[in-house]
C-alpha cells in the first residue's frame, strides 16, 4: 500500500557492483517506503538476482560504488548476519539444504539472534514451539516439517514455503523475494502468495524479483520496475507488469536504451 509520507526503509543510490571483476550493477537507484510492495522484473542476466544478493550481503559480490541506506543506517557497512538481525530478509531462489540441523532448531537460533539484536530476551524451546505452531498456518505447513533437516528432501514448493515460514517468524522490515514463484504450481503459488500477503503491513516493505507477471496477480505491487543491464530503466504502477506481459521487454529497452535485445 502506498502511504503518504511514510518512513523511508530503503534508499539505493547509484549502486554499482562486480562479481569476479565483471560489473553487473551499473548505477541502480531505488527508494522503498514503509507499506510498499515493489516488483522488479526484467530479462535474464539483467542483474535482478545480483541486486538481491548485494542487499543481503553475499560475500561473492563486491560493491564498487554508490550507497544503500536502510532505515537511516549504511547497509553496506554491515555483515550479512547483522543485516538480517536488523530486519533485512532474503527469500532465496534456491534455498539451501542444511543436513543434520533440524528446521525447528534453525528457526529458533535465527529468531533468537534477531531478538537479541532488538534488545529482547531470547525465547526458550518451549515458548518457541507455540510461536512456530501459530506461524505454520501462514504457509499451510504441517508440523512434521519442523523435525526434518532444513530443506533436506523438501520439494521445490516446500522449500519456498519454508522460506516464507522463516519470513513469518523473523518479521523483517524489508523482505526481498528472489524468484519465489519460479518452479511453483498454481496451488503452491497461491499458498506462498497468500502467506506473503498476510505478512505485509504498513510498517514493512517488500521487494519481489520475478520473471513472471503471474505472481503479481496474487501479490499486487504498488510499483513495478524494469531492470536491464544493471539499472532500473523504467518504473510504473502495476499496469506496467501487464503491459510487459503482453508486449515483452523489447519496447522498454528500445525506449530506454535505444536498442533492441
Amino acid at each position, binding site marked *: 500500500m502506498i502511504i503518504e509520507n511514510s518512513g523511508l526503509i530503503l534508499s539505493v543510490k547509484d549502486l554499482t557492483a562486480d562479481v569476479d571483476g565483471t560489473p553487473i550493477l551499473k548505477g541502480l537507484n531505488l527508494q522503498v517506503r514503509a507499506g510498499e510492495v515493489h516488483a522488479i522484473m526484467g530479462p535474464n542476466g539483467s542483474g535482478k538476482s545480483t541486486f538481491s544478493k548485494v542487499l*543481503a*550481503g*553475499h*560475500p*561473492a559480490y563486491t560493491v564498487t560504488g554508490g550507497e544503500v541506506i536502510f532505515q537511516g543506517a549504511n547497509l553496506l557497512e554491515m*555483515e*550479512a*548476519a547483522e*543485516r*538480517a*538481525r536488523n530486519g533485512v*530478509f*532474503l527469500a*532465496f531462489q534456491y*534455498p*539451501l539444504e*542444511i*543436513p*543434520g*540441523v533440524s528446521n525447528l532448531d*534453525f528457526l529458533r*537460533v*535465527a529468531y533468537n*539472534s*534477531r531478538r537479541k*539484536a532488538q534488545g529482547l530476551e531470547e525465547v526458550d524451546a518451549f515458548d518457541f514451539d507455540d510461536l512456530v505452531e501459530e506461524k505454520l498456518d501462514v504457509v499451510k505447513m504441517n508440523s512434521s516439517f519442523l523435525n526434518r*533437516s532444513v530443506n533436506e528432501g523438501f520439494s521445490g514448493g516446500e522449500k519456498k514455503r519454508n522460506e516464507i515460514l*522463516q519470513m513469518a517468524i*523473523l518479521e523483517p522490515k524489508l523482505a526481498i523475494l528472489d524468484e519465489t514463484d519460479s518452479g511453483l504450481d498454481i496451488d503452491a503459488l497461491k499458498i506462498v502468495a497468500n502467506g506473503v500477503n498476510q505478512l505485509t503491513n504498513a510498517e514493512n516493505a517488500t521487494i519481489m524479483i520475478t520473471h513472471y507477471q503471474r505472481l503479481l496477480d496474487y501479490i499486487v505491487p504498488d510499483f513495478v520496475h524494469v531492470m536491464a543491464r544493471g539499472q532500473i530503466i523504467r518504473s510504473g504502477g502495476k499496469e506496467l507488469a501487464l503491459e510487459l506481459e503482453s508486449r515483452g521487454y523489447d519496447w522498454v529497452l528500445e525506449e530506454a536504451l535505444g536498442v533492441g535485445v
Partner: protein
Amino acid sequence: MTIEVSPSSISDSFLDRDAFLTGLLNQVTVSEKDDCLQQLRDGAVKWVRHSVIPNTRDEEWRFTDLSPLKQIDFKLGMFQEISLESDILSEVSQRLVFVNGVYSPDLSHTEDLPAGLKVGNLDVLSDEVAQQYLAQSEGTREVFTALNTAALNDVAVVWVGKNVVVETPIHLLFVSVSGESATISQPRVLVVAESNSQVGLIEEYTNHRDTENTEKEVYFTNGVTEIWVNENAQVSHNRVVREGAAAFHVGKTAVTQARYSRYSCNAVTVGGRISRHNLEILQTGEQTETTLNGLTVIGDNQLADTHSALSLNHPHGVSKQLHKCIIGDRAHGVFNGKVFVPKPAQLTNASQLNRNLLLSSKSRIDTKPQLEITADNVKCAHGATVSQLEDDQIFYLQSRGIDENNARKLLVNGFAMEVINFIPVASLRESLLKTVTSLTNK
C-alpha cells in the same frame, strides 16, 4: 583370531624380531595361571613372538604410520582409585568399569540384574561357556589382537540368555589413567546374545577427565571386543572412543552373526593421537542384518583409521554402512570398507557410504570402498564424498542472522549429528556433541 602356530616349523631366528613388540609383550604378560585360558594365552604369545608391528608397506596399514607409537616406552597400566562423576550415564543402570584394563567392582554397578542376564568380570561365565566363545571369533589374524589375547585376564562380560530382552543399554566403561610414565592397557570384552535375545551396549574408552593435564597424557589402549549374536538375536552396539589428545588406541571389534540376527554398531571416535578401529563382521547364516554407522572427528595432527570388513556369506543378507569423518587442522583420516559378497550370498542388499568433511586445507582423508562381489543376483551400492563447508550454506545461515562462526558450528555439528543421533542415550549424545564442538572450534 584362532591361534594356530606350530613353533617347530619356524626357526627361532624369526622370533622376537621387533624389539618394541617384545618389550610390550614382556610388559603385559601375566604370570602363568593354571586356568582354562592358559592355552589361549600361550598360543597368542607364540603368535606375537613371530610377528612384528605393521608398517606402511603393509597394505592394511598403508596410510597409518605407527612409528610415533614405537618411539614410546610403555609400562603396563595398574589399577588406580578414581572417581567417575563425568563419565556416568544417568539413563543407564548396569555398568562395568575397568581402570587401565583392570576390573573395578566398586565403580561398577551390576545389581538387580534380570533373570537370564549376566554382567560382570569373566568369572560370571562357566569355563565351558568362556572356552566356547572367548578368542574364538574368526577373522583377520593380527598382532594387536594376539597381544591382547596373550595377556587375557579381566574381561567385561555380557551374556544374555535365550529369549531375554534387556531394556536399557549396558555401559562398559574403560578408563585410562596415566601417571609419570606412558602406560598400556588391554581391555577385553565378550558379549554373547543367545537366540531370540535383545541387548544394547555402550562401550566407551576414555581417559580420566577429572584430573589436570589429561590431554597431554600418553597411553596406549589395545582393546578387543568379541560379540556373538546368535540366531534371531539383536545387539545394538554403541562404541565411543574419546581418548586424550596424545593417546594411542587400537581396537578390534569382531562380530559373529547367526542367521536371522540383527547387529548395529554406532562407532564414534573423537580425538586421540593415532587411533585405529578394525571392525569385522561375519554373517554365518541367511537373512542376517548388519547396520554400521561411524563418525570420526579429529583435529591437530591426529590420525584416525577405520578398517571395516563385512562378510555376507548367505542369501538374503542385508547391510547398511554410513561412515562420516570430520577432519580439521593437519589431521588425517583413513577409511577402508571391505564388503564381501561371495557366490552363495544371493539376494544380498548391501550399501556403503563414506562422507568426509575437510575443515582445513591441510587436512587429509584416504578413503577406499572395497566391494568384492561374485554373487550375481544382488543389490550393492557404495559411494564416497569429500567436501568442505560450502560458502553458500554459510551465507544462507548468515542471511538468517546467524554469525559466520556460529554458522560453521551449526553445519559441522549437523554433519556429526546424523551419526550421533543414532546413539540411544541422550546424555551421551549431548556430551559427544560438546566434545565435537570443542574439537572443531578452536
